[in-house]
């Protein structure tokens, strides 16, 4: 039995690097400090359903094969294709992504990562208006106003609050953990008293009025000292429950709300009484709280990027930060999902100049989301082969896009059997990055962190990087043979 400290967790964009693992008999026996998702990931390597040999489709059925055959067949498919797509990349290391860009260029394909159905709109608006941002360390030590807009970190990034924002002790700001605990205790106490009253043990007392936050009314909590946590969402999520103030916005009206706030920050008068279901006077109080903070941050998620207006929402949110920076200090940060989606954007950018939706079909990189994004290419039925790595598009792409993806030869590289593997033509198992292979991943604030190898992969299973390198070598061989023949 051995212990490994400071392991980086390869699950979400938080990339917590304080995980402690206990290894016994070559498998992970205990996970300390991690969230439920982290534990599940570290335990998954010894899952009995794990795929250990490559599979190839013969007469409609998947049959086991060898790596050599699987790699050769994959290379033949890609080298022959007129418009292949190479999709995924966000749950593997930057080293594999680098080889991926090389492969995409070699086969003249469309290279895209999961940002296309996630934070792609954020990237589009960053290219239009820039982004005033900072690292999570800055926020941990200095931020006193934290706004989560259209995201639910309590469920999706469970340790974000505890490691980087409201519930962490920074050098200049204290944790709000105790006040949250008090709030939870008070709620539990109230529940107990009510139940006793119901049973007739306690005499019924006139209930003291407790300020509610669900009706958008800014309570005096916005004037309190110390860290403030505000959540803006269409429904009362788990994060909204623990927030100091919860602002409920009408679904699909975030754009109007941000524009309204911007106008108020610029001291303009609005001709309307409410914006997106929020009275203008409440907005004014929120704007006062924003302007009077020392250092504020807005974190945003899918609620902004994938609701109507998409990247225009982010466009105005970033413009709001620009406006606020004329009065105080403010920053903005997207809540990236996969552990290395930021890395995929970064690697693609330093290799090709573009962060996602890169089209190499003309021999040089081209980028035009809407034209070169994988979902649009599939919906227009233009591609004729596909390689999916470290991703599961079949379970989350539009049905029409999936239909076209499945119709053409499909190569899947993934450690596990997922919905895409089940419909693929060549399935190549790989080692789990961050558990069975070391590598590099980028945190949501663009800080690169090393991933550790803690256990050995199953016998004979190769890493993503190695598989891609072999396919690339094979593609080059086929191409040079073709040139010689010509």
């Amino acid at each position, binding site marked *: 039995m051995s212990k490994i400290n400071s392991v980086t967790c390869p699950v979400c964009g938080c990339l917590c690097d304080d995980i402690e693992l206990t290894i016994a008999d070559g498998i992970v026996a205990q996970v300390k400090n991690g969230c439920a998702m982290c534990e599940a990931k570290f335990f998954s390597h010894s899952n009995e359903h794990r795929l250990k040999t490559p599979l190839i489709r013969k007469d409609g059925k998947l049959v086991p094969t060898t790596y050599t055959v699987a790699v050769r067949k994959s290379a033949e498919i890609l080298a022959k294709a*007129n418009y292949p797509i190479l999709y995924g990349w966000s749950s593997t290391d930057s080293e594999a992504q680098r080889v991926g860009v090389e492969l995409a260029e070699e086969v*003249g394909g469309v290279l895209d990562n999961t940002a296309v159905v996630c934070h792609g709109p954020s990237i589009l608006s960053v*290219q239009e208006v820039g982004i005033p941002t900072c690292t999570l360390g800055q926020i941990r030590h200095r931020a006193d106003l934290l706004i989560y807009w259209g995201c639910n970190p309590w469920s999706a990034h469970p340790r974000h609050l505890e490691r980087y924002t409201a519930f962490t002790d920074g050098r200049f700001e204290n944790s709000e953990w105790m006040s949250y605990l008090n709030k939870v205790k008070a709620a539990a106490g109230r529940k107990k008293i009510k139940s006793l009253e119901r049973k007739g043990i306690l005499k019924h007392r006139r209930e003291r009025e407790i300020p509610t936050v669900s009706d958008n009314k800014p309570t005096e909590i916005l004037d309190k000292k110390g860290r403030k946590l505000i959540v803006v969402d269409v429904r009362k999520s788990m994060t909204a429950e623990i927030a100091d103030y919860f602002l409920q916005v009408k679904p699909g009206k975030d754009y109007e709300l941000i*524009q309204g706030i911007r106008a108020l920050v*610029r001291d303009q008068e609005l001709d309307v009484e409410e914006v997106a279901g929020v009275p203008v006077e409440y907005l004014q109080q929120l704007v006062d709280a924003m302007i009077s903070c020392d250092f504020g941050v807005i974190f945003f998620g899918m609620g902004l990027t994938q609701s109507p207006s998409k990247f225009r929402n982010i466009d105005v949110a970033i413009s709001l930060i620009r406006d606020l920076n004329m009065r105080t200090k403010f920053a903005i940060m997207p809540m990236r999902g996969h552990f290395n989606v930021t890395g995929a954007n970064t690697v693609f950018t330093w290799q090709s100049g573009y962060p996602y939706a890169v089209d190499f079909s003309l021999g040089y990189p081209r980028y035009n989301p809407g034209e070169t994004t994988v979902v649009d290419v599939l919906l227009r039925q233009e591609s*004729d082969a596909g390689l999916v790595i470290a991703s599961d598009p079949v379970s989350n792409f539009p049905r029409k896009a999936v239909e076209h993806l499945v119709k053409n030869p499909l190569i899947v590289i993934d450690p596990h059997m997922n919905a895409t593997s089940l419909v693929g033509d060549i399935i190549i198992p790989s080692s789990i990055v961050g558990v069975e292979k070391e590598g590099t991943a980028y945190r949501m604030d663009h800080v690169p962190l090393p991933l550790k190898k803690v256990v050995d992969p199953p016998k004979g299973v190769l890493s993503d990087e190695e598989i891609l390198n072999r396919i690339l070598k094979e593609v080059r061989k086929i191409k040079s043979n073709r040139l010689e023949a010509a």
Partner: protein
Amino acid sequence: MIILTPIKKTQYPIIAQCISPDVFQEKTLEQINNLPIWIGNKRRILSDLFKIEKTTENSPSIIINGDVSQVRRIGWGMTQGEIVVNGNAGMHLGKKMSGGKIVVNGNAEGWAGSEMKGGLLEIKGDAGDYLGSPYRGSTIGMRKGKIVVHGNVGSDAAVHMKSGLIKIHGNSGPFMGFRMTGGVIHIQKDAGTRLGACMTGGKIVVSGVLEDMLPTFAIEFIKGKVKIELGDKAIGPFFVFLGDLAENGRGKLFISKEKNPQLSQYERFL
């Protein structure tokens, strides 16, 4: 005059920016046949895809008889002559054009007239998204010229528009005239949401119903009629809104009073 007739259908995107009067000019039929195009990731020549005929008439114009909705970049950067498409046209039609005329007797896909600098683009059917808008990350929109669409227009048209005229006989999608700084847009039927968002100049005239008014526009006055171009006026009366206040903008929205009774609540501010 050159007549192109598509002879082959393919599922792959086709990039053919050579289809432009400037490129075809003073070229023999054989040279035109051998102009390079891209089908998917393979380099081909123009005659692989089109039957090309040259008439005796010596004018710099091109007629495409058939559906070319897969063919992108037709009329890229053209400065003179005429292109007539008797069918649907693909993406980036007339991109960066600075002169001449393009007529589409059908629909056009996205980014038609993108970064236009002059000339006339007429679409008899519907236009896709990003009509007259720049590519991703660019802030240089339409600078001059005229676009006429007889059908409907998709979303994000006339983004960053600086000057020129866009006339739409049908309806428009959301985010028309986003961040526009000048120029004129006339929507003869209904307009989508977030019209003129973040605009700082120019004017947008809506003769039909406006789906949703942004809160950051303030009413100024009511006007009887408004000039679209020389010899063309839109008859009102119109509510005139000024905005976008979030950008301290001075852009003008002219919204038909008769068709938009929901905006009468603004009249109390007059």
